[in-house]
């Protein structure tokens, strides 16, 4: 029930600190949670992707993550430096449905925080939880190393409970993935992100 009650807490905090204050707060919570989860190291992409499938990595705290191993990201030399990952269901969807059945309507605080983030930080959020979630993944990625290199995370696309989709043109271009491929993934998945070796010279990067 604490998940449904969270909306009331956010309403309270918007009154005190404004939507921008809640965005900063959520981002700090993302930093804190990531810092408490410790470091991980994997020999290579194969062992990392197996760990993702078996829900052994810090990313697995979010729920079921699918490594899209047919969608590799390559560097200028053609070496694989990352992959796309996707979640069939957004972590916050069960809470939205629980709120619908327990309370009856989604709090306007959710939209206020989402809009604030989309307008001033990164136009990718479909609910207030995306604010925390994007920062959490970015910080977690720094603590995970594959073949001795730490990772960087790029949130590429999201689909909200009402069907609204968001694609980050900036991040899609950064990892050199065709936007149409990402859009097609949103038919089956609600959250798509890329993990790449930090500092890799990506193909097509200028």
């Amino acid at each position: 029930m604490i998940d449904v009650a969270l909306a009331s807490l956010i309403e309270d905090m918007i009154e005190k600190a404004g939507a921008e204050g809640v965005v900063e707060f959520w981002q700090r919570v993302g930093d804190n949670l990531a810092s408490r989860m410790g470091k991980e190291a994997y020999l290579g992409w194969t062992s990392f992707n197996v760990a993702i499938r078996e829900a052994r990595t810090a990313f697995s705290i979010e729920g079921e993550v699918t490594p899209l191993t047919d969608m590799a990201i390559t560097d200028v030399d053609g070496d694989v430096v990352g992959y796309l990952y996707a979640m069939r269901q957004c972590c916050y969807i069960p809470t939205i449905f629980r709120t619908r059945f327990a309370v009856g309507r989604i709090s306007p605080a959710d939209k206020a925080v989402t809009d604030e983030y989309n307008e001033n930080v990164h136009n990718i959020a479909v609910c207030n939880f995306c604010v925390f979630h994007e920062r959490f993944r970015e910080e977690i990625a720094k603590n995970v190393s594959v073949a001795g290199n730490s990772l960087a995370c790029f949130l590429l696309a999201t689909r909200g409970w009402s069907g609204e989709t968001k694609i980050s043109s900036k991040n899609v271009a950064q990892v050199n993935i065709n936007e149409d491929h990402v859009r097609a993934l949103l038919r089956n998945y609600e959250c798509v992100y890329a993990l790449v070796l930090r500092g890799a010279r990506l193909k097509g990067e200028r």
Partner: protein
Amino acid sequence: MQDSNPFVDIATHLFLEDLAGKVGVAGLNNYLVSLARNLAEAMPREEYASWSEFLAALRDGQSILSTFEEVRPVTDRCMSTLRSPFERGWREYAKRVGSFAPVHREVAAYYNHKVRPTAVTSVHIVLHTFREAAAARVRVGDAPVRYEPVAAAWVDGEVQLPDGPKLESLLKRAGISPTKLGMLLRNHSEVWLLEPA
């Protein structure tokens, strides 16, 4: 109702920990009480013609008081909850993050001292306040319903009970003996009282 993703519960606990760093234990207690009251007040009111109709709604998960937990009436007045609605989140937190931050116990100690001695951890403040505010939104016949916690047992086995005379009075109103309470606490997370106000 569909279960929540425990990640959202974990994030909320971290949110509360960060908040406590800013407003202190007393401030966190106020936030928890306020969020639980707001949640109950956002939910629809209820009315029942008789106490037995109300008990059936509780048992079937149709009442505001059984929205987030499976309620098993033990007597007409004594209710029990098999599993705490916070247990999954707590287990996932312990598995993925580590031990709970001390502030969750500290705020419970504050609540026990200031309000009533029935919280083991921060989530019990939410649960007790929510049930109290939710019960006030229910009318059976012409009377509103009053809630009082009897005992809470946390996932780690710690039990929080009121002191002797207060407990005796609660058990008498609930219609159960101290032995029955002990039996319930072996495999239930909460025992509580509902009565006409």
